[in-house]
């Protein structure tokens, strides 16, 4: 990874004073993850270019002492872009190698450090999650002229498309310390990764380096969010601190926007869970199963209803169950609530005696994640062996997909969906179930019903025939 900084300020070689690095020498610095070399490819009166060549040790990254860096997929791989691209490693190197320049100090030319001079930065390879648009949105408000060249993944395979890497040139007239600060903060933001553990200390760093410019930056939210590795509590805290200094300007409007975006999605899910809960209540069930409970949203609703004396959440993903347990604060629940709730790992592809003998089962947005060919097994596991008196089952109505603006035609709503059914298909399937296993069924629409394509979600409530 190569970072070049040039100036045309006369005499240009004063850049050496600003950086505290002599233009006639090559200097190397040891870093915990490799080394950095500083040298000047050109150093003339009219123009001078300093280069910071960052040399990350690719084997050392993988074979590092445990706990040195964040445990992260890319760092555990020998085949990793980390040694070659501008990332938080570069920020660390800047802070280490150009520490005086970064803080705006210059022993020999203190005036110059305070002066805005024409500067040009070249980054040989900068990963931009968010593409050139974000690159421009981040640097242009700070006065930079941005030139970016995108790179293909592999020229021999054009269909693989472009990589997320750019060779970038930034030009601005500003103080060198400002420029370095911008790079220090914004490079990891564009990369959207950090090689080290991000905690409270990171807020301080951000505020220190963003002191002068971040509060007024239009992309403030996403900068903070990404810089703090998407950790909400950190982001909230950092934004609060920034805004104190910023007199709470436009933050309310931003929050409102965010909510509206989410509203649309959460809205349907809320309606769905409420309908399922209502159907379970109507069935007068006391002991209920939530099969495929995921992270426990329905479980929380069921717990709030006294009618349900025993609630079981089952999911095939152990990870989801762990999250559910955390979200429901399972370990801290009062004894009375806790004894009503049980979570365990299980699969709808296996017969399971733990599922027998319940009054009702909810299967919310689950069947579309099963291969059609395996559905027959699910049917027997649920309707023949577990055979609860009531089964409340929901699944997307594919007809409604045309109503979603940001869903490409022909795509399912979720990458893992193996199928989505029309109302007819769903009802035909459900009716077959009733015949085979001795149930009756009633269908309900969930969500706003469209005249032509019906509701976004369809629900079937099955009831076991007992007297036959």
């Amino acid at each position: 990874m190569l970072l070049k900084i040039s100036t045309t300020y006369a005499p240009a070689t004063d850049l050496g004073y600003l950086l505290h690095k002599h233009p006639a020498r090559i200097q190397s610095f040891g870093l915990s993850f490799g080394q950095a070399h500083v040298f000047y490819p050109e150093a003339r009166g009219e123009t001078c270019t300093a280069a910071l060549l960052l040399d990350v040790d690719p084997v050392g990254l993988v074979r590092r002492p445990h706990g040195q860096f964040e445990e992260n997929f890319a760092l555990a791989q020998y085949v990793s872009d980390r040694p070659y691209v501008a990332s938080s490693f570069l920020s660390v190197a800047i802070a280490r190698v150009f520490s005086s320049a970064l803080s705006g100090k210059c022993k020999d030319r203190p005036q110059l450090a305070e002066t805005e001079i024409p500067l040009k930065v070249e980054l040989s390879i900068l990963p931009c999650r968010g593409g050139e648009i974000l690159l421009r949105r981040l640097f242009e408000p700070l006065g930079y002229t941005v030139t970016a060249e995108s790179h293909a993944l592999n020229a021999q395979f054009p269909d693989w498309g472009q990589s997320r890497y750019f060779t970038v040139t930034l030009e601005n007239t500003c103080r060198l310390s400002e420029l370095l600060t911008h790079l220090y903060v914004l490079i990891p933001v564009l990369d959207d990764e950090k090689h080290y553990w991000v905690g409270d200390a990171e807020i301080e760093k951000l505020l220190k380096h963003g002191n002068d410019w971040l509060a007024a930056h239009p992309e403030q939210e996403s900068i903070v969010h990404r810089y703090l590795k998407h950790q909400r509590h950190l982001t909230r805290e950092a934004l609060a601190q920034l805004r104190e200094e910023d007199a709470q300007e436009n933050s309310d409007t931003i929050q409102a926007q965010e909510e509206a975006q989410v509203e649309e999605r959460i809205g349907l899910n809320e309606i769905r869970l409420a309908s399922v809960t209502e159907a379970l209540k109507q069935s007068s069930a006391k002991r209920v199963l939530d099969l495929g409970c995921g992270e426990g949203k329905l479980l929380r609703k069921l717990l709030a209803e006294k009618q349900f004396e025993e609630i079981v959440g089952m999911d095939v993903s152990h990870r989801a169950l762990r999250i559910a347990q955390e979200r429901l604060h399972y370990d801290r629940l009062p004894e009375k609530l806790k004894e009503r709730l049980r979570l365990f790992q299980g699969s709808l592809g296996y017969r399971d005696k733990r599922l027998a003998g319940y009054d009702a089962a909810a299967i919310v947005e689950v069947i579309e994640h099963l291969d059609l060919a395996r559905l027959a097994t699910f049917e027997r596991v649920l309707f023949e062996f577990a055979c609860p008196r009531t089964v409340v089952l929901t699944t997307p109505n594919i007809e409604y997909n045309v109503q979603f603006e940001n869903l490409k035609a022909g795509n399912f709503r979720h990458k893992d969906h193996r199928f989505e059914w029309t109302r007819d298909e769903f009802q035909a399937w459900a009716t077959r179930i009733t015949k085979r296993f001795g149930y009756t069924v009633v269908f309900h629409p969930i969500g706003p019903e469209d005249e032509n394509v019906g509701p976004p979600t369809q629900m079937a409530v099955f009831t076991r025939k007992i007297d036959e």
Partner: protein
Amino acid sequence: MSHTSPNPETQARNEMEGDSKERNVSHKAKPNEPQGKFKIPNPSLILLIGPSGSGKSTFAHKHFKPTEILSSDFCRGLVSDDETDQSATNDAFEVLRFIAAKRLAAGKLTVIDATNVQVEARKPLVALAREYHYLTVAIVFNMPTKLCQQRNEARADRDLKPHVVRQQSQQLRRSLRGLKREGFRNFLYVMSTPEAVEAAHLERQPLWPNRTDEHGPFDIIGDIHGCFDELIDLLKALGYEISTQPDGNTVVEPPHGRKVIFVGDFVDRGPKVAEVLRLVMHMQRTGAAICVPGNHDVKLARALRGRNVNPTHGLAESLAQLENESTEFKTEIAEFLDSLVSHYVLDNGKLVVAHAGMKPELQGRASGRVREFALYGETTGEIDEFGLPIRANWADEYRGPATVVYGHTPVPEPQWVNRTINIDTGCVFGGKLTALRYPERELISVPAYQMYYQPIKPFLDEADEQSTLKTHRTDDILNIDDVLGKRLISTRLHHNVTIREENTINALEVMSRFAVNPKWLIYLPPTMSPTETTNKPGLLEHPTEAFTYYRKQGVSKVIWEEKHMGSRAVVIICRDPETAKKRFGIADDTLGICYTRTGRRFFEDTAVEAEMLKQVKEAVDNVNYWETLDTDWICLDCELMPWSVKAQELLKQQYAPVGASARIAFGEAVTALETAAERGIDVGRILDDYRQREEAVTNYVKAYQQYCWHVQSISDLKLAPFHLLATEGTVYFDKNHLWHMEMLSKLCERSENGLLFATSYGIVNVTDNASETEAICRWEELTEQSGEGAVIKPLDFIVQGKRGLVQPAVKCRGREYLRIIYGPEYTLPQNLERLRTRGLSHKRSLALREFALGVEALERFVHREPLSHVHECVFGILSLESEAVDPRL
């Protein structure tokens, strides 16, 4: 067993059922104190009964293993730290009964060392014995009260008041009379003096059904029902010599070492009941046969003893046929039938024979319910449209380790269901008489000469298709208990393989969300270890280390096969969709499947898969392996190319970005350094270093992109099979790799569309330098021309060395290929040196365990074991794959 002795099992049954009316067998009164010799059935639940100080514990430790004794004092200590703490008694007994229940479930002889002097104390223990179909034994210490009191006083750790002991003695004496009725009729031993205790001698007797030391081989014959002629035909077909004595009696001479086991129902409905009985009794007498009784036999015996039984279901015919026989013969028959033991457990517990089947928890046990089950099976209490009892599906639920062979309900064809098989093929109803050869598991049948009796329910009309699919129907649904939690899987190659619970957690998700129908998953390939790390300059792996490894393991000939850089694929191909349906239970009209090493369907597009399978099938048609290998399906282990088909995401997310970024990064760096050098700055070492690294990256890009090509249609795919794993009834692990390569190269030659791709290989003698050198040359050529490398295997598929199983294969990857694994710059000396330290032992142990499980899965499948047994192994492999092991090995 002598015919005249009363059947102890029948006695036990009467007792355990508390049925005092059913006394068709005369009891000999048992003396209460046999001369110091106590017969102890093994297993049984033994209650020591006597007051404190009567000598129970001393006696127990003299005659039983410490682990067989459950003492109330000990349990008191467990829960309260004080063996004498009477307030802990209730908890202590709860613990005692809990442990006793576990031991009884496991079939262990168990001694209860407590006073047991009160009926309330004995009752729950007797109930526990009933629950587990155990016989109960009472050993009573009816010692003088004074003696007990003296002994207690002498014990420093006891502070029992004399009145307590006196009370216990009284309670015991009051109990004595009722003990028989309480459940200790047959095994009640009372001792009244210390001398009697001293003289007592215990003799453990195996329970009647226990014949585990008989190993066969056996010929197990189904329900005969008086079909004498067919029985003779079948015995002849099985190789038994039949001759007729001058007195008209038939004599049977078994082939060497073999023995018949009859599953009962010798009589009723058929034409020659007397002849059948005469022959069977003769065979049993001479040791040529072992018999278990059927429900018809038991009923006939009762009729012969003059009991009032309803002469239906063919009994009237039997009685008519026997009418002219001598009274002696009839008595002999009755005694013979009465003497028969409900069922047998044979061959170290691996084989169970019973007339109507036997659940695992009842096997080898003795009780009325065990006998009922053996004779009548389990019924739901409901009656079907023909007035016959509806049978509960014990076989469907069967999960026991023993093979159960039974009859009782006629079926058109014997079907293996969960290690059980019903061999009653309804001879008397015009079906056939069937024998199962054990351990060969071969079925031999002879047809009935005619329909002798009209069945109430037409059993032969059962839709043929339905019956052949029975195994699949009942097997359809796997049970979560078969996979979840810590598991121990016994394999024939590598003992027990342990699967840790946290690994099954991961496997369950993968299996449930992504894997193909478990019925297709009869095998998953094992992981493979690389060779030991070489010290040759510039290299991490080299064939020399592989050759050395095998030489050290005592293997002299190995085979190297080109390692293709694609994705592992298991292909199952059927002759027709009908085979897929019948053999695999997959009824969606497919010809087979192609799945990945983690059990996922290889192609999302079913049309591509269907076309590929069709082309593989055509190649098999062309070489006619259907006939050569006598099969309707074939399972192949393959590599499917290009890599980019399956690894597209990985390429786009990881491999291509690294190449793209590194090339530019190094390009710019070298240019900048050169510019600086031109200015006269001394960058010498750094510039050289960067030029080398730039070249390494160029080589890296070259290395990965040659395994990628555009796939527009099936004609762009290459499938390279390298193991012919299995066909119907056979696995090919006994064939060496040369056989596999030759069989498969013939197949590849006949692949008309060029889909199948033959793998190059060579045999190496690892004790011959020249042979090794030649192979090394080939490896170098191969890896220089973009080959990934080679897999080196012992010539024999499975090699057991001095220290157990030898690695079935090790991979030896080329220098350029390894850039994809260890990064573009791994070849730089400073990197290579660090990479040389890598531990292989975990990987190798994993490879062996997965290999053993894979072999086991296929063995079980071809031997028609139930789906859950096959699935258990495959699930185990998937679980092991989530073990944390260096992914670069």
